């Protein structure tokens, strides 16, 4: 039976790699079972890092799996006539297989820091009073919209004509976020009640929304279309239905839409007179 069990363990790397390759190739029945379409400018860095780690761990996975299989196959007591190697280890080997993984892990750790800083630390800036970018007086780019998580919806506010979010002329929407493409977009996100997480799978953006904190996310979309806004942090019984819709548009379409939305909202504003008339 040792042969049978060795082969069973050989199936682990074979089927494991097979499963990933099948999904990456998108063959039936795993069509679309891989990283979703990336429409952001920075997503390829995250995807590239994912693939880099996948290949690296894949090599280790296959190598250790094959070695494991080979040892089980070769040293099966029922097949192996050689005496047991009476040994307690090897100092040299321990040093080798400590230093190589340590070096690799430190490399991965340092290699990715830049991508992390771009995503979470380096908020897009605008030129300051001197009119030049990358100088000391740069000012952070203001958010184009403010998003508030609330059980179980995303409330969205765009600045009205005064250019300030939080005033009376804001354009207010629910679960319907529209953003221009081909420019750095900053969003301010916050929560009114419990934790939520603002997850845009197609833009490789995720940030937990924490009540009491005002946070910013930024990205640059590159393609028009309609995408999901997912809540990725448990927020209660209706967590599953806290779905928003992100519409990416060209700047001109976006401006036209925002103007219309602003006008429509102001006209539709409730006044006692119009209420009585109906």
């Amino acid at each position, binding site marked *: 039976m040792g042969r049978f069990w060795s082969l069973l363990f050989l199936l682990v790397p074979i089927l494991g790699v097979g499963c990933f390759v099948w999904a990456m190739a998108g063959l039936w029945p795993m069509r679309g079972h891989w990283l979703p379409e990336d429409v952001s400018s920075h997503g390829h860095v995250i995807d590239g890092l994912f693939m880099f780690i996948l290949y690296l761990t894949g090599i280790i996975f296959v190598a250790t799996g094959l070695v*494991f299989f080979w*040892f089980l196959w070769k*040293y099966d007591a029922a097949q192996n006539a050689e005496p047991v190697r009476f040994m307690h280890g090897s100092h040299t080997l*321990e040093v080798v297989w400590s230093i190589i993984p340590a070096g690799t892990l430190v490399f991965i*750790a340092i290699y990715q820091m830049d991508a992390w800083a771009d995503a979470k630390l380096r908020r897009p800036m605008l030129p300051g009073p001197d009119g030049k970018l990358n100088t000391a007086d740069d000012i952070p780019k203001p958010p184009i919209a403010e998003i508030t998580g609330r059980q179980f919806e995303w409330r969205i506010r765009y600045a009205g004509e005064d250019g300030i979010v939080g005033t009376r002329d804001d354009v207010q929407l629910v679960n319907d976020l529209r953003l221009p493409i081909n420019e750095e977009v900053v969003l301010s996100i916050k929560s009114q*009640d419990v*934790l939520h997480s603002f997850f845009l799978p197609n833009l490789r953006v995720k940030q937990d929304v*924490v009540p009491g904190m005002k946070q910013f996310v930024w990205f640059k979309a590159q393609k028009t279309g309609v995408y999901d806004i997912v809540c*990725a942090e448990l927020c209660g019984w209706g967590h*599953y239905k806290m779905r928003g819709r992100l519409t990416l548009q060209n700047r001109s379409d976006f401006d036209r839409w925002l103007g219309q939305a602003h006008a429509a909202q102001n006209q539709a504003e409730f006044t006692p007179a119009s209420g009585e008339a109906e």
Partner: protein
Amino acid sequence: MSAISLPAPLAADHHHAEMDVGTFIRTYVFSLDHKIIGLQFLFSTLLWFLVGGLLALGIRWQLAWPWQDMPVIGRMLFSAEGGQISPEFYTTLFTMHATVMIFFVIIPILAGAFGNYLIPLMIGADDMAFPTLNMLSYWFMWPAFILIGLSFLWPPYGAGGGWTSYPPLSAVKEAAPGSAFAQTMWLLGITCVGISSMLGSVNYMTTIIQMRAPGMTMFRLPLTIWGMFITAILQAFALPVLTAAGFMQLMDREFATGFFLPEGLQVNNNAMASGGGHPILWQHLFWFYSHPAVYIMILPAMGMVSDIIACFARKPIFGYKPMVYSISGIAGLGFIVWGHHMFVSGMNPMLGMTFMVSTMMIALPSAVKTFNWLGTVWGGKIQFTTPMLFALSFVSMFIIGGLSGIFMAATPVDIFIHDTYFIVAHFHYVLFAGTAMAVFGAIYFWFPKMFGRMMNDDLGKVHFFLTFIFLNGTFFTMHILGAVGFPRRLADPYDYETFRHLQPMNQFMTICAIGMVASQVLFAYNFFHSMFFGTPCGRNPWGANSLEWFAPSPPGHGNFDQQPIVYRGPYEYGSPEVDTDNYPQWQPPPSDPSRIHKPDHH
């Protein structure tokens, strides 16, 4: 312990007719004997294992066929919803699945059942240092069982804030149906589990330090004991933080202290009276315990697997000291990596970078351990017994669980896969395919010692084969879902267009999960049948080396009928000093000096 003969072992005495009620209760209920306490933990945790498994099937059912009647049992369980799982009950399902599996199964089965049973036997002691504390550590589990059991009785049938209980959802009673009564029960229950673990941990540390048999130096301890020892230290240092955090959350709930609640909170249209706290504080405190707890849930399993593999490879463990240092390294680093659960939580991203580096580093001792296991099977004479198969599968599956951790440790990648099925795949590979498989192996391995009878090996192999196939069918596919960004904890993920096409794969996983739970019937049958009808075995059926095999099977009260004296480490298989392929720790060295083996130095 003296060398005089001990009273007839109670456990070996099959004539209970003359035993009065008081003796029975002292012997089997409020017992001070570490073996009985260990078995009490084992039976309780196996029962909860079944509960946790059934809760998991509820989750799987909803993900495969959302809002559809469960055949036959759906109408009985959820009559109010017409046989459907309601969305609030779905949050209960995954909260309680994790709570039961972590706090009622994995931690108590490793430390409580195997720690209790094995520590005195493997170090050559007659019992634990503090038998009464030991008894209390088991009986403090019962308030937890009752409190959390009570929360199942009334709607919404359990807490629903996730096993992580992140405030404000869990701390504000109005935030969710499960956040009222059930969450209070949950917090009190977890506190009792904490007391139980703390009592056990103090006892294990003292016993291992103080009560080793003559000749049993620290570096002659079996790796199981090293795993238990380091785990006890982890528990002693990490648990107080969880207990404190739990009480802070209770205070927030009952007395509006506002440790975790910020200003201006408006939950469910109620303006909160309290404020001034911060929700992320809870996450720091919770993970300061719960990340070391991840290692509490695997280090003893690693130790037991090392013992089983060395025994059935008939070869010394490769790199004993590096194994000990790795266990210690994992434990030490385990205290400074908790922030990797919080990369996208709103924690300072600079701090995230620091935690990322320490997290990457913790992969190193795990890698060293894996290489040493491979080194152990190399050049051995492998016997493919049931416990060995489970131990080997631990190594094979731990490779997957360990490698998949690197994805989450990489902060930019974590932005995408955080809170998706990728992490669900990762921790099920570590905790189910790793720890639970090691526990199965350990049960098959030490069952003869516990009950004096062997479990059926053929049935055990069928159990192994089916579990192994089905677990990979259930959990490996989760990596693929994670790559699509499929979020966890959604009652109906197919509402999102991005994930709609993933339902067939979820159905496949659910079928595998049902197969996996069903396969455990074989184990239950084998376990209970062998207890009474298994082949009786001698003291050392596997030809192993460590001291528990020196005692009778099952050992009587006081464990050893002769004082064990330890001459060497526990892994001297295939030694040239003796003609047998094992060389037990208690066997004196050969009298002929020419046979004494001189180790080469290199």
